[in-house]
C-alpha cells in the first residue's frame, strides 16, 4: 500500500511544470456559446469586459499531468472533477504563464479497495505576475491491491 504521507512529503507544493500561453478570442466565444452562455462579457469580443468562462479555464493545463518521477499507483488516473477559483478576469491575447504543482493527496476507502485522489493545482499568472486563477484537477486512481 502506498504511503500517502511519504508521497505528500516528496511532492506537495513543488512546481513540476510551467509554460506560457495566450488564449484566442474566437475559441472563448465558441466554447461559451456551446455551453449556453448568453452574457456579453463571455460571447462578445467587443465587450470591454470580454473574458474566458470558468469552464474554459478548466481546459488549461501545464501540459504535464503529474511530476515526471511520480510513482505509478497501479491504475490509470481518471478525471474525477475540476474546480476553478477566479481572482481576476482572464482575457485573450494576453501573455500568461501556467504553473502546476500537487496541491493535495488523499484517499477514500471502500469495499472495493482504496481510491487515491491527487489534486493538481494549475495557477495562472499574467505578465505582471498577477495571480488570475487557480484550476484544480482531481485525478482518481484505484489502487492496485497488493499481491
Amino acid at each position, binding site marked *: 500500500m502506498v504511503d500517502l504521507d511519504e508521497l505528500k512529503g516528496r511532492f506537495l507544493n513543488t512546481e513540476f511544470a510551467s509554460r506560457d500561453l495566450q488564449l484566442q478570442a474566437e475559441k472563448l466565444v465558441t*466554447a461559451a456559446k*456551446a*455551453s*449556453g452562455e448568453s*452574457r456579453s462579457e463571455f460571447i462578445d469580443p467587443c465587450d470591454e469586459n470580454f473574458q474566458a468562462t470558468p469552464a474554459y479555464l478548466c*481546459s488549461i493545463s501545464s501540459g504535464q499531468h503529474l511530476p515526471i518521477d511520480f510513482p505509478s499507483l497501479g491504475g490509470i488516473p481518471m478525471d474525477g472533477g*475540476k*474546480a476553478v477559483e*477566479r481572482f481576476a478576469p482572464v482575457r485573450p491575447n494576453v501573455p500568461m504563464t501556467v504553473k502546476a504543482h500537487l496541491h493535495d493527496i488523499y484517499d477514500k476507502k471502500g469495499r472495493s479497495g482504496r481510491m487515491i485522489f491527487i489534486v493538481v493545482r494549475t495557477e495562472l499568472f499574467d505578465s505582471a505576475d498577477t495571480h488570475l486563477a487557480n484550476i*484544480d484537477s482531481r485525478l482518481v486512481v484505484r489502487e492496485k491491491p497488493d499481491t
Partner: protein
Amino acid sequence: MSVKTIEDVEFGVELPVFEPDTSLDNVGAFARAVGWGGARFESHEGAREEGFPGALVPGIMGMGFLTSAIHQWAPAGQVEHVDTVFRAPMLADTPAIISAVVTDIDEDEGIVELDMTVKNTKDETRVFGTAKVRLPLG
C-alpha cells in the same frame, strides 16, 4: 426569475430551468474550442471503439452548463469559485437536466452558495458540485 442583488435571493430557492444543448455538433464544437477535439467527443462510433457507450460530453462542458445557468439567473453575478465532481459520463445527444439550489447566503459579503447537479432523464447524477457567486449588495 432572475435576481439583481443579494437582497433578491431567498434561501432554498431553485434556479430556473436551463436546457443545455448536448447535441453531438455542439459538443464537438466545444471540444475543439478547448483543444480536446477527437473521436471521444465528436463521434458516437469513434467513442464506442474506445470502449464508451457513445460520444461523451466533456466534464468541463457540464461545468459550463452550470455556470451558464447561474449567469442566466444572476445577470450581475460573478462566479468566484466552482467545484464540480464528474461522477459518471454524460452522453452527447442525450438530454441533461440542470438543477441548482441556494444553500447559503452571506448578505454582508454579497456571496451566495449553490448546490448544483446535472442529471440524465433516468434521474442519475452525472455531474454535481458547488459554486460561490458574488452579487451586488442591495
